[in-house]
């Protein structure tokens, strides 16, 4: 029984005993914020292979950081997508819109007008750039921090407000939690509270498009914390095996509620490097750089559309707000950490770039903010007129609709029992 040969690798007596390693973030409340453990490529420094290149030729990319905007607001290097000023302004507008809307909704939650809210503060470049960079027939499989996708496509604000209030005009008829939108016509797949479980749907959708020789591709999102779910691996496996025309994005905002990204594996490697497990290109991108996000997305889309398969993109960003209305981040990280995030704020950076190229100025910016603030205010007012949570709701009959395409006897009896 057992093996006691001294050639075996059984423990040698002079070894220290085993220890369990628990990752601990560099700083906690009370400490001075520090990002010294991170190092970033310079803007413009990372090469841009051909989008049809073999994966074996790109195994360095997951360890770099693709950046276009430098500290002065200049766009430099091979990844500069060379967007028109109009498109840059469109992006800035959608990002600002997202931020102003978030801010307003967060305050409405405090007033008890809804049950729940989540912001994408500091991460707005991601969804906005990708929404604009992709086409009408492409489908996104978002997380709850991708409001910018809808904002960039001019989704009616009032729909958002009504959904958040779960009122009589809620487009989802009160069935879903606030912010868990669904907007098929805008390329926005149905959200759910479960994290990660739609990542593979993006792959299935993309495979279906390829199966039908259609031309739409899919883009899926997952938070860096959620990459630990089996869903992540399964989605990437299927994407790789069937060369699905899909862009799979890890939105790495460095936090999963209170847990720093070390709990998801960031102590040992990058999230982009997970692409290597599947023989897929892994791009690591400055997620607060509108131009870099755009360029990487375009590259991956080109690859997908030409039947070269999937790409994994890590969008490196920082969650500047709390996780949700239920969270207080000062309980687990330095209160002023957000201000020290070295890659800055995506709105400020795009604004600086536009000013730098002479296509924007403070006055226009202020006017823009005022216009959008007013639009948010008006939508909220309109939604409040219908009613906020608990004051107005869709017909209770709705509760029994849509469980199946047609209700069965159980639903009919129960609806009757409730008298609706």
């Amino acid at each position, binding site marked *: 029984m057992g093996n006691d040969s001294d050639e075996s690798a059984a423990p040698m007596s002079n070894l220290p005993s085993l220890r369990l390693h628990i990752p601990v973030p560099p700083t906690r409340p009370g400490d001075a914020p520090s990002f010294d453990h991170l190092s970033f490529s310079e803007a413009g420094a990372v090469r841009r292979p051909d989008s049809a290149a073999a994966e074996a030729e790109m195994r360095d990319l997951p360890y770099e950081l693709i950046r276009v905007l430098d500290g002065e607001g200049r766009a430099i290097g091979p990844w500069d997508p060379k967007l028109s000023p109009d498109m840059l302004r469109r992006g800035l507008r959608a990002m600002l819109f997202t931020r102003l809307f978030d801010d307003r909704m967060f305050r409405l939650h405090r007033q008890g007008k809804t049950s729940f809210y989540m912001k994408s503060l500091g991460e707005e470049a991601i969804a906005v750039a990708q929404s604009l960079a992709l086409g009408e027939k492409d489908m996104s499989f978002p997380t709850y921090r991708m409001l910018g996708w809808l904002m960039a496509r001019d989704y009616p604000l009032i729909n958002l407000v009504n959904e958040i209030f779960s009122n009589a005009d809620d487009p989802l008829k009160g069935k879903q939690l606030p912010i868990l939108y*669904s907007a098929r016509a805008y390329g926005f797949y*149905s959200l*759910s509270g479960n994290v990660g479980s739609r990542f593979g749907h993006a792959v299935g959708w993309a*495979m279906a498009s390829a199966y039908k020789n259609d031309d739409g591709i899919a883009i899926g999102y997952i938070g860096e914390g959620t990459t630990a779910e089996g869903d992540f691996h399964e989605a990437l496996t299927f994407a790789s095996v069937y060369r699905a025309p899909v862009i799979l994005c890890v939105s790495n905002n460095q936090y999963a509620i209170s847990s720093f990204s070390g709990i998801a594996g960031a102590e040992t490697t990058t999230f982009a490097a997970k692409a290597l497990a599947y023989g897929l290109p892994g791009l690591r991108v400055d997620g607060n750089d509108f131009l870099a996000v755009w360029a990487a997305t375009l590259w991956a889309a080109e690859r997908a559309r030409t039947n070269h398969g999937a790409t994994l993109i890590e969008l490196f960003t920082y969650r500047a707000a709390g996780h949700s209305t239920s969270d207080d981040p000062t309980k687990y990280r330095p209160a002023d950490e957000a201000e020290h995030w070295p890659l800055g704020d995506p709105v400020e950076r795009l604004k600086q770039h536009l000013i730098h190229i002479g296509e924007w100025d403070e006055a226009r910016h202020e006017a823009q903010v005022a216009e959008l603030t007013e639009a948010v205010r008006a939508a909220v007012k309109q939604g409040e007129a219908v009613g906020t949570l608990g004051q107005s709701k869709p017909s209770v009959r709705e509760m029994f609709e849509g469980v199946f395409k047609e209700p069965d006897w159980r639903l009919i009896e129960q609806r009757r029992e409730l008298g609706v």
Partner: protein
Amino acid sequence: MAQMTMIQALNSALDVMLEKDSNILIFGEDVGYFGGVFRVTDGLQKKHGLTRCFDAPISEGGIIATAIGMGAYGLRPVPEIQFADYILPAYDQLVSEAARLRYRSNGEFSAPITVRSPYGGGIFGGQTHSQSPEAVFAHITGLKTVIPSNPYDAKGLLIASIECDDPVIFLEPKRLYNGPFDGRHDRQLRTWAGHPAGEVPEGYYDVPLGKAATVRAGGEVTVIAYGTMVHVALSAIEESGVDAELIDLRSIVPLDIDAIVASVEKTGRCVIVHEASRFGGFGGELSALVQERCFYRLKAPIERVAGWDTPYPHAFEWDYFVGPGRVAAALARVMEA
């Protein structure tokens, strides 16, 4: 009409549907070139093409997630899970996603997928090739669960499931694949040849979901069963001489409550039979429903005959498997009561 085993009938259903609708496709572990470990997809890849019926990675969660995404796009995937014991890694996808997609998106997206999977015991498959997990699906709002008991129904129900706009768990009693097993393992085994339900039309037809079949009319007691247990119950009834009415549910969601109530109203007695372990099994729901709706007609306690509350043990196949002896004993008890 042709003579078919249940495997052939299922194969025929898939063949007919692949022909009929280019939105239908099949994938799963070993279903492609090889045709599936139980041969249900035999020949389909060759006939319909590589992208219509293909192998999938060993990843039940991934298979179902992919199928849901395809369904949302507009296809009607028919994934196979090799054994129902191995469907559990996909349980979250089935419950949190497939079952809820239509509701939570207020109808913008849905998952019209049909998940085929062989289930059940009587094959010396041990713990992980013999289980009957229908109860953990029946409880889930938004899922339909279908269980055929013969070749004719298998084909018609599978076609109806594929055409159904809701997600369907389609459980195939693998013990019935090749013949109508009645639990009498010590007697000569029968095949589907010569069985009326082994006569199967070659073309398209459906058997609607939610309509039970009265396998045997009777006046003294109602026996409710599905899958392999239909044959076990029939054998027990025939040998016991009790004038029992045997109802084959065919789908447990939707459930044909009218058929059940009509029969128990008539007989005043009820025996429920399933393979799955008893506690918290689907028999509890059936018993509760009958009791709620037929209370004043009941002449005896409703009996449940079910698997023991243990895992499925290899050496004790015939001690565990619900056989006609246990059903007959229950019939005797309700008749004496």
